[in-house]
């Protein structure tokens, strides 16, 4: 297996007023294609920052991020946006759907940005909503959907451009336990079916339960890791 995502000694500090916060203090990791990786850590451990850095949203102060062998932060803004569009899918804790667009339009958005023609993008978006189990919710707006349904739309949106990597930031953090479980199972199913790499940042042990790998992040450093499906925490 080849590594699809790699970081080398990534550091990121924030200036918050007079306070300098070191969110990441030198993270090096390698994630292989098709893996379902959970990054586990308490709040404030730097999980979200790491995810943003991995996704090309937040430039690290030091270190390098390689996606598919390409150094992400040596690219210019436009090229990096294109990498986000075509190789990365994001799933957020608060779903981050555009409230004024229907489920279908939300899922279509990355296709629109990628200049796919309307006919094809509608077809693809419908298929994707079908896959995440929302075939009957196509014309609903986010406010008309439950939290779990909204997250399914978000997952459909993340996967619509067939990205290599899906980055999920606390995808169950805003859902009740059973709905969260469904979402995790959906992501795992897609991981298996589409052989896409999933990196899920969470402090929810249930999410980590069935991951191929678990990385423990604390105080901005990877403190350790565990491998193997299902046996990580048991």
């Amino acid at each position, binding site marked *: 297996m080849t590594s699809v995502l790699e970081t080398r000694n990534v550091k990121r500090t924030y200036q918050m007023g007079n306070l300098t916060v070191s969110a990441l203090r030198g993270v090096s990791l390698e994630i292989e294609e098709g893996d379902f990786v959970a990054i586990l850590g308490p709040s404030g451990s730097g999980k979200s920052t790491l995810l*943003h850095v991995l*996704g090309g*949203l*937040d430039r690290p102060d030091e270190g390098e991020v390689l996606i598919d062998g390409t150094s992400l932060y040596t690219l210019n*803004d*436009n090229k990096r*946006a*294109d*990498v*986000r*569009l*075509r190789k*990365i*899918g*994001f799933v*957020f804790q608060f779903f*981050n*759907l*555009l409230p*004024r667009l229907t489920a279908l339009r939300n899922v279509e*958005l*990355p296709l*629109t*940005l*990628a*200049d796919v023609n309307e006919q094809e993008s509608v077809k693809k978006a419908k298929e994707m909503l079908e896959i995440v189990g929302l075939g009957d919710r196509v014309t609903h707006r986010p406010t008309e959907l439950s939290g779990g349904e909204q997250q399914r739309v978000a997952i459909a*949106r*993340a996967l619509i*451009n067939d990205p290599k990597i899906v980055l999920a930031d606390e995808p169950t953090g805003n859902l009740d336990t059973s709905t969260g479980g469904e979402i995790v199972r959906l992501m795992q199913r897609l991981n298996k079916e589409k052989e896409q790499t999933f990196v899920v940042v969470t402090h929810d042990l249930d999410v980590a339960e069935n991951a191929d790998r678990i990385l423990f992040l604390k105080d901005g450093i990877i403190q350790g890791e565990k491998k193997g499906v299902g046996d990580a925490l048991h």
Partner: protein
Amino acid sequence: MRRKHILSMAWQNMKQRRFRTFLTTLGVVIGITAIIGLASLGEGFRVTIQQQMEQGFELNLLTVLPGGLLTGVPGSFTDDDIQNISKIEGVTLATPLIQKSGVKLFSDDKTASPLVMLAVNFTEFWQIYPDRLIFEWGSLPQSTRNDTTVIGYNIQNPIEGWAFANAGQNLTIQTTLERRPLRVENRTFNLAGTLSKSGAAGFINFDDAVFIPIDTAQRLYNTTNSDMIFVRLADPSFSDSVAKAIEKRFEGQEDVRVLVPAAFLAQVDAILNMLQIFLTGIASIALLVAGLGIMNIMTVSVMERTREIGILKAIGARSRTILTMFLTEAALIGILGGLVGIPLGYGLAQVMGRFLFRFSAGIMPRRSLITGTTTRPLSEVSPILSPEWIIIAIIFAVGVSVIFGWYPARKAAKLDPVKALRYE
């Protein structure tokens, strides 16, 4: 991202905020309405004035006046002067004129006053204004008869259906001789004809004039000189060269002024042009205010949509796409405002052209103080909307919208996606 998609997204955004879009666009509409309204009204005004001016000027004529004041100062042009001017290249005719104001005219028990008396060489002067000086009845006096007169339309027809004099009748012209002591002189003339409506040529209104032979006037006033010289050109293109030649001829001897109608018209045209630019400039302020409105609304919109912008960026929208999206919204507002504002402005100009000038016609003096001419008051101005102005208005509307939209759009494009995603 393709332009079509950006356009449809921008349009969606505008549609979803209908009321706000309406208000923002209204600002542009008002600005464009003002610009188009004043511009087309100004253009209509200009053309109307121009037409009236052109009716009042023969472009192939020059008038040589004594320098200083425009009229009233008795000139001292000699026969030699006239001969010299006739020899200038491009001149086909030069003829003298003596002008006296404050003249009274008696026909039996009827009096007409005050009038302008024009003493001319009938044959020559009628060659100067062949198209203008048309006889209502009668004909050009024979040059051998020195006691004939021709009267203008307003003298003969002061009111409808009432005639001042009859053909062949004798009229008495009363003039005041400028001698000390002042002497009033009455002289009898035979009426050779009356003129149709002739209008004003430059500073002389023929409708209020009584014509007598210049020889008679010269004897009466005991002079061999004349007040002005009318010069007819082979072609209006000689205007400048002949005017310069005349000025050169008199240089160092006498202070003269050569009135060049073509130049005068050009000057009036320039003034009217400036007026139009001035009016449109004022109207543009309205559009600039609209631009500020766009900037304001878009800044608010960017703040409101910060999270949305963050999402778009996270899923792969380029900064340029965001920028274009917001600028497209601004441009759409501009186009929309322009498309609504142009017909509205033209309509406004129609209404103003019809009523504003009608009102002002009532308070405008009918008789010009300078020229002593009676002009038909400007009762209506038909606004003129040229295609150039439509294009200018659209460019201006879109330009202002995009320029003022630039700052907020850029702000949106430059948003840090991580911060934007956290924005509540």
